[in-house]
């Protein structure tokens, strides 16, 4: 039944080289534990530096993996896959992590919680995200999701390691706890969904599920029922991770309480991991799950409804937020909605590739813009965590012109005004939706972005059009934080102005 493979077969089938971007990062992280242990007094310089270097090493390894669909490789007996989709998202994850690390050092120092573990957990979490975008098997998706999430639970509560009973420490603790409990809950959905899909199709491997689905649906037995329920549970489980309505409840509290660089990181990497898994599961494994023969996929309507709800709720509730981190939390829910629009569009036959590419460009644009926005918010926060309200940024254009200009461009990009990356993302997503025949959903999408203009422009109003009344908190505008903001700004503008840059990067992505 199970013959032990020869060594040559083993090497060929495991093809470890294809997993290098993620596995090198894990190995590097383990090394980092030792560095942090033995570096002594120098550790506060060495650990962050080595962590960034690790990202670079992984980046280089990734360049060898990033290949068009025709040259894709699988690894570990088909459990991992390395193609352009993986390669592109790996780059986004690595840049996001780099930006988050640049923001972190001085923030942690000021808060008095500068520990080596922070960097180790961050890298582990990013490695989890990288495994998730490379996952080609439901089991791997689950394991990678845990590797992504567990470090994030701890990081969310990181401010409470200095247990001084301050409000900030308590909020951070609450954030970590909330995230953990709801995260564990959603993981259970994911596992149960995977089990049902396995029961229906007899496989956990994504290509094998793809191959088995037509027979299952064709037989019209109870297996179809389990397959649909399983698919729904997978959507629920991953929906929690990407924070779409109605699985978004945890987001504002967790985002507000977590240390700001952690919030920035998880608003990006956790979503990337979740969306990558959703795309793989829905577009590859379940792409043939059509209950009406020749019709759109069975999950398209569900995803469309989720997308519409997410867009409406995320954007409308964001209006009433006074705290910038909470506002950005709701805005991140809304942006998940736009990516869901692309996902829904991918359900129409023939639109899968353009919709996937749209989603990827959207993710890229969102990564730069959102991290940049969080970085600016971080610089105006006070050490006790306060000061991140709308009123605290009044007159910022006079006191810190550079920060105000950067924030304005980030806000314009989140709104989707042309010449910023956000527009390119929205343009590609809506183009895919129109092409897929989902004009109604696209109209909801554009109208809610007008709503979003209201709360994003309010930030600009406060910075530019009102004059400062109170005193500003001492700025956390250190060299590294500035670098993070500059990189984010450059990404937002360069990808916004040079449209072909983004579209060429994703042009060879095809996962359907």
């Amino acid at each position, binding site marked *: 039944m199970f013959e032990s493979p020869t060594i040559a077969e083993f090497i060929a089938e495991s093809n470890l080289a294809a997993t290098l971007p993620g596995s090198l990062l894990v190995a590097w992280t383990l090394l980092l534990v030792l560095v942090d242990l033995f570096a002594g007094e120098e550790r506060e310089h060495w650990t962050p530096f080595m962590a960034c270097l690790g990202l670079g090493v992984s980046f280089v390894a990734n360049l060898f993996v990033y290949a068009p669909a025709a040259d894709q490789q699988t690894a570990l007996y088909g459990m991992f896959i390395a193609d352009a989709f993986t390669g592109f998202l790996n780059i986004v994850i690595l840049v996001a992590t780099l930006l988050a690390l640049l923001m972190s050092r001085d923030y942690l120092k000021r808060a008095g919680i500068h520990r080596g573990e922070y960097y180790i957990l961050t890298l582990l979490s990013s490695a989890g995200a990288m495994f998730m975008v490379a996952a080609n098997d439901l089991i791997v998706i689950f394991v990678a999701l845990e590797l992504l999430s567990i470090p994030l639970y701890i990081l969310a509560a990181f401010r409470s390691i200095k247990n001084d009973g301050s409000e900030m420490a308590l909020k951070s603790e609450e954030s970590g706890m909330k995230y953990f409990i709801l995260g564990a809950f959603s993981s259970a959905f994911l596992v149960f969904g995977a089990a049902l899909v396995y029961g229906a199709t007899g496989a956990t491997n994504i290509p094998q599920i793809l191959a088995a689905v037509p027979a299952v649906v064709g037989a019209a037995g109870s297996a179809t029922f389990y397959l649909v329920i399983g698919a729904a549970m997978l959507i629920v489980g991953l929906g929690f991770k990407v924070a779409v309505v109605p699985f978004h409840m945890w987001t504002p509290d967790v985002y507000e309480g977590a240390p700001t660089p952690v919030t920035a990181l998880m608003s990006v990497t956790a979503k990337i991991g979740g969306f990558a898994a959703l795309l793989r599961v829905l577009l590859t494994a379940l792409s043939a799950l059509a209950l009406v023969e020749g019709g759109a996929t069975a999950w398209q309507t569900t995803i469309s409804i989720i997308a519409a709800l997410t867009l409406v709720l995320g954007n409308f509730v964001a209006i009433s937020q006074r705290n910038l981190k909470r506002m950005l939390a709701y805005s991140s829910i809304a942006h998940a909605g736009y990516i869901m629009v692309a996902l829904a569009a991918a359900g129409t036959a*023939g*639109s899968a*590739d*353009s919709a996937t*590419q749209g989603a990827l460009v959207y993710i890229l644009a969102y990564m730069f813009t959102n991290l940049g926005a969080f970085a600016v918010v971080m610089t105006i926060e006070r050490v006790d965590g306060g000061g991140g309200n709308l009123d605290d940024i009044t007159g910022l254009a006079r006191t810190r012109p550079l920060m105000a200009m950067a924030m304005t461009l980030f806000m*314009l990009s989140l709104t989707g*005004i*042309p*010449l910023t990356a956000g*527009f390119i993302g929205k*343009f*590609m997503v*809506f*183009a*895919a939706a*129109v*092409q897929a025949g989902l*004009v109604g959903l*696209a*109209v909801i999408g*554009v*109208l809610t*972005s*007008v709503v979003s*203009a*209201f709360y994003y*422009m*309010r930030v600009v*109003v406060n910075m*530019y*059009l*009102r004059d400062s009344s109170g005193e500003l908190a001492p700025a956390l505008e250190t060299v590294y934080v500035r670098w993070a903001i500059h990189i984010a700004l450059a990404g937002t503008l360069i990808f916004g102005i040079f*449209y*072909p840059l983004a*579209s060429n990067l994703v*042009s060879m992505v095809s996962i359907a």
Partner: protein
Amino acid sequence: MDVTGLSLTTITLFLPMLGLAILMFMNGETQRENLKWVAFATSLVTFVASVVMWINFDPATADLQMVQRNTWAEVSLGDSAINISYFVGVDGISMLLVLLTTFIMPIAILGSFGSHIFAERGREKLYYIFLMLLEWAMIGVFVVHDLIIFYVFWEVTLVPMYFLIGIWGSEERIYAAVKFFLYTMAGSILMLIAILYVGNTTGTFSTYSAGGDIGVIEMVQTHEGAGTYWDAAPPDAESEDGFLFSSVESFLFLGFLVAFAIKVPIFPFHSWLPDAHVQAPTAGSVILAGVLLKMGTYGIVRFNLNLFPEATVAWAPTIAFLGVVGIIYGAWVSYAQSNVKKLVAYSSVSHLGFVVLGIFALNAQGLQGATLQMVNHGISTGGLFLIVGMLYERWHTKEMADYGGIWKVMPVFGGISLVISLSSMGLPGLNGFIGEFTILLGSLGSDYLGFAFTLFGTLGVILAAVYLLKMFQHVFMGELTKPLKDEDGYKLRWHEIAAYIPILIMIFWMGIQPIVFFNMLDISVDRIAALFVR
């Protein structure tokens, strides 16, 4: 047709960006005095460049001229890929509006020389940077012929205008700026969906054909067979309502129209305009009235009429009716204002109503008159806003009741104001008359509009005289109610005179020798009007 090399259009389009780049590298504090000169010089050079374009312009062809077309990017849509191209060029209509833009810009900049707002709010560098950005985007709107790039320029105009109103406006500026931004964005974003739909259906975003690629306009106009290009089912004459509210073409038409109608603004989408106009600084009002509003009417002529001819015909009476309502309503409300700036702002609603009426007359006279009226309104209303701005600089009030007898102390200024007011109310011999007269002629001869449209339109001309003369009488006639403390204030400064001279020249030139401008438009307009010959 030369479609690749660097064309004059591109040079004109990017000159303001050069100015912007120079301004960026200047120090806002130490070189403060030089900022306005850089901006002014840039706008002058841009104007000269556009005049060179005009000299090179051949009015004998309806094709686009000074064209440049480069593929910019590919959008993959399903199995096909659609090119987005940098496609610029001018026909008569574009040429005239580019000239209007580059003409108004230096005047607007002169109008902000030595303004009190910089003493209050500072940030002069940012101010001029936004003006340059605005000029770039506005020229872009008038010269690009790729739908996506058009949308980019269209949306980009919002940002500098938002800041101009929001930072340098008067008391209610924040409310006005946010209202302006949201209102116009809400309109234009639906256009994006319509554009994407057009691209997806036709496989191209270029409106005109060039370099072997067929543009959308040609596809629509050479369509043969049943129905229209957009709908396979023919628009049934029996059930026109069915066509209006159920056909794809009609929806696409509305998708574009709402964006343009808000910008124009066509009644009842005008409520952002009085706020934005009244709160904006002088240069902002001048540009808003002078150029930005024309982007809407230009868009209707360029896109709605060309791309959706059947829907245009079906909707023409409705929209023209709204235009006439705008004429009367704008004039009526204008008369009721006690605030000078608001009076001028509502007069824009009335004047733009004429343009809408002219466009939807759907014949050559109507379109020609409408295009000319766009320019006339830009010049005369721009001039009126300059007058209001100058009054405000001296007396710091916009209430009509606070003024009176200004002619006595500032006779030259009074004379200039009289000419501009008369031009705005359409006195024969001045420019306003030519536009309005041609429009009314067009609507009278229209196959699509009844006699009543012309009748009520004409009423608007009379009402214009009523409210403008009322303003003139209150402000300039009678006894001087509020003498200035400093007698020097009565003197006109050099930059104020310099701003009025070109306006006066244009008012007389266009009034006495309109043939120059008609010639420029003739063939371009005929090409559009030919679509609607019954």
